[in-house]
């Protein structure tokens, strides 16, 4: 069959396959399709940088132009992964610099990136176009200067929410005036100093700029100057959005925003001076995306703003919006697909705002396209969750954080099992779920029974026994990532479902009851897994085998055990050095 199509035809056909999934399927059809596919694959996504080595990637896919790598486990965002754990990008950059001279795009998430790596990137790839560093760390503005200076065709520089050491504010000046290719620039994570003249000059000679996200250092008064050079922007992130209230600044700002006829997304809004919010009213009706999650504004200013954004598809906001604001949102934004409500002050023992389950219920009722939710609140009921599930069976990502661990339904004092059960039962397309509140093993029974498309599950302070974990591992057919903290899950469920772990990307368990002995057994049984024990109290084999490990990270890999681990990480493979 394969002989009837010449290689060129197959290559051409394969070029229409967008997703990795499809290309992976195609490569399994037969040997010659595998060979043809691998030699023309242009883009590789690696969800766990330790699951494969750069050498294996390069050997299989010699023509890659775009690489995406993810490093640390998700819980690293909450400081649960100690500093120095790993996820160094350097070996990848070194290997690619030798084998992929035509590489154009590097996208990294939660990785450690050094200035040396950035310099190597900037000098190794002549046609380098896209650098995206999300939640990365380890580099300084010196590394950025190298990128700016050497990447003649740079289209995209996105520093996401990375931690960058600010050594000098003049790195922007390293962009030559001849570089006019910039389409997207996100420097929102950068620190207190920046050279406005360099920034302005860069923007002025970037006619293709569509996305610009500024750092907090850029003051409000400078925005009109910047925006007049970039009226073609589609996405814009302000800097600090406050200033002495002056009518001339206001009218300049309003005029500048009015001139941005293509603007669809706004973000930034650090330090908001409410008097300047009306300056963006001219663009509100066109906005599809609004990120106010750093803006400490309350109603009525907040409500007035949102009620004008009828076309909003995505809203990120602080809980200052309160239930009343969410009710107004539900009434005016019928195209809303994604809502994230972050806590303004979660460490207060009492609530500082009225944001309850009612707000979320209102949005679930009023917004028929709502499919992605992240919601921090202080109280929840089963009834509310059941209503939300019934209203929105099209929900795809549902992350609820009731701030108090193990908080019950505040009206009935029962666990929230029934509520989350309704979510998984009704929302048949659910791919991501985060649980909170008081939960027994029963909720996991519901999840194992119904959540057949669930790919990522986050659990904290929940469950009664190993049965909980067993339900999830044995029932969730599509599960790829499971992260658990502070749950009474131990050896039994893990060992009974050991084979399941090879079908998943990774499992994280911290402050649970998995013993060191069970970890060793798991590593023995399944050589294709790396079983990492993270324990800063000393080598786990100094304690009895039955004692529980502090943190456990298990992931499948074809690269074998890693050797770049710090002293507090033990890999329990037979041939590992530790």
């Amino acid at each position, binding site marked *: 069959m394969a002989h009837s199509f010449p290689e060129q035809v197959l290559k051409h056909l394969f070029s229409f396959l967008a997703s990795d999934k499809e290309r992976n399927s195609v490569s399994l059809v037969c040997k010659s399709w595998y060979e043809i596919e691998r030699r023309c694959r242009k883009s590789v996504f690696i969800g766990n940088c330790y699951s494969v080595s750069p050498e294996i990637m390069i050997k299989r896919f010699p023509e890659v132009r775009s690489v995406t790598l993810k490093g640390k486990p998700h*819980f690293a*965002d*909450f*400081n*649960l992964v*100690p*500093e120095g754990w790993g996820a160094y990008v350097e070996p990848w950059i070194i290997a690619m610099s030798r084998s992929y001279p035509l590489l154009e795009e590097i996208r990294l998430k939660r990785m450690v990136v050094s200035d040396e790596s950035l310099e190597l990137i900037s000098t190794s790839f002549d046609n380098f176009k896209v650098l995206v560093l999300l*939640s990365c760390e380890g580099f300084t503005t010196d590394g950025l200067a190298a990128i700016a200076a050497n990447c003649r065709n740079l289209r995209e520089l996105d520093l996401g*929410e990375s*931690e960058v050491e600010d050594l000098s504010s003049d790195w922007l000046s390293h962009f030559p005036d001849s570089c006019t290719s910039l389409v997207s620039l996100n420097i929102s*994570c950068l620190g207190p100093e920046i050279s406005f003249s360099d920034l302005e000059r860069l923007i002025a000679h970037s006619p293709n700029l569509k996305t610009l996200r500024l750092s*907090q250092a850029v003051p409000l008064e400078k925005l009109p100057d910047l925006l007049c050079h970039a009226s073609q922007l589609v996405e814009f992130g302000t800097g600090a959005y406050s200033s002495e209230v002056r009518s001339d600044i206001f009218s300049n700002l309003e005029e500048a925003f009015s001139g941005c006829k293509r603007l669809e997304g706004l973000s930034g809004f*650090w*330090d908001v001076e409410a008097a300047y919010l009306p300056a963006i009213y001219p663009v509100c009706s066109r906005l599809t995306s609004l990120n106010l*999650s*750093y803006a*400490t504004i*309350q109603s009525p200013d907040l409500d007035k703003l949102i009620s004008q954004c009828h076309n909003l598809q995505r809203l990120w906001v*602080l809980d200052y919006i*309160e239930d009343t604001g969410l009710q107004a949102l539900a009434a005016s934004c019928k195209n809303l697909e994604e809502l994230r409500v*972050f*806590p*303004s*002050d*979660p*460490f207060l*023992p*009492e*609530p*500082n*705002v*009225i944001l*309850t389950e009612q707000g979320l219920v209102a949005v679930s009722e009023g917004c028929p396209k709502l499919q992605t939710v992240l919601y*921090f609140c*202080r*109280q929840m009921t089963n009834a509310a969750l059941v209503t939300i599930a019934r209203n929105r069976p099209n929900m795809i990502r549902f992350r609820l*954080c009731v*701030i*108090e*661990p*193990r*908080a*019950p339904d*505040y*009206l009935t*004092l029962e666990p929230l099992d029934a509520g989350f059960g309704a979510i998984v039962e009704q929302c048949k397309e659910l791919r991501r779920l*985060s649980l909170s509140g008081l939960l027994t093993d029963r909720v996991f029974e519901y999840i194992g029974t119904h959540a057949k498309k669930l790919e990522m599950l*986050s659990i*904290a*302070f929940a469950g009664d026994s190993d049965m909980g974990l067993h339900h999830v591992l044995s029932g969730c057919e599509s599960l790829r990532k499971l992260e658990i*903290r*502070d749950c009474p899950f131990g050896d039994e469920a893990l060992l009974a479902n050991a084979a399941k772990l090879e079908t998943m990307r990774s499992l994280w368990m911290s*402050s649970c009851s998995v013993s060191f002995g069970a970890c060793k057994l798991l590593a023995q049984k399944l050589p294709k897994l790396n079983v990492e024990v993270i324990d*800063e*109290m000393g080598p786990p084999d100094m304690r009895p085998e039955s004692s529980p490990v*502090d943190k456990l990270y298990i992931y499948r890999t074809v690269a074998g055990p890693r050797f770049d681990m710090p002293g507090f990480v033990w890999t329990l493979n037979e041939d590992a050095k530790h």
Partner: protein
Amino acid sequence: MATEMEITELRLGLPGGNSHMKEKKRVYSEITNSDQNSSNVNVNGDVYYMCQNKNEVVGWPPVCAYRKKNNFNGREGSKMYVKVSMDGVPFLRKVDLSTHKGYSELVMALEKLFDCYGIGEALEDADKSEYVPIYEDKDGDWMLVGDVPWEMFSESCKRLRIMKRSDAKVIGLGARDFLKGMSENK
């Protein structure tokens, strides 16, 4: 019998019933007290800096470190948010004292926040006005707003409360005497 302090606290749950809130708090502190792991773990200092309670659970609630840095701690010293409660109003508000240069600006902001225009009177004659703004200072004493110079006030004010004269049972008492009574009842 609820003290004046408790009346200013926002409660969740059935009116009058206090017990399940306390239960929740007990459960939380059980977790934190028994969480031996967090005291030894070498985590980023960021997690602890804004915690009043040293035993706070690491990494909970799950707000990512980048967001925490930019929201709650961010520019230390430049913001002075204090909670404001008003008698008869079931929610709390916050004001940033650093954005106001004096009492009249503060009062205007408060009047706008609560949609209530009568607070300013208290600055002129606390004994006759319908609304009496008071504040809790560093020492836990309740004082009348306006008595001390603005800088001294903004540095020591921990929170604000707008009392309604009609709600406060102060028949025959001047505002200052009432406050003295409040502070003594601690």
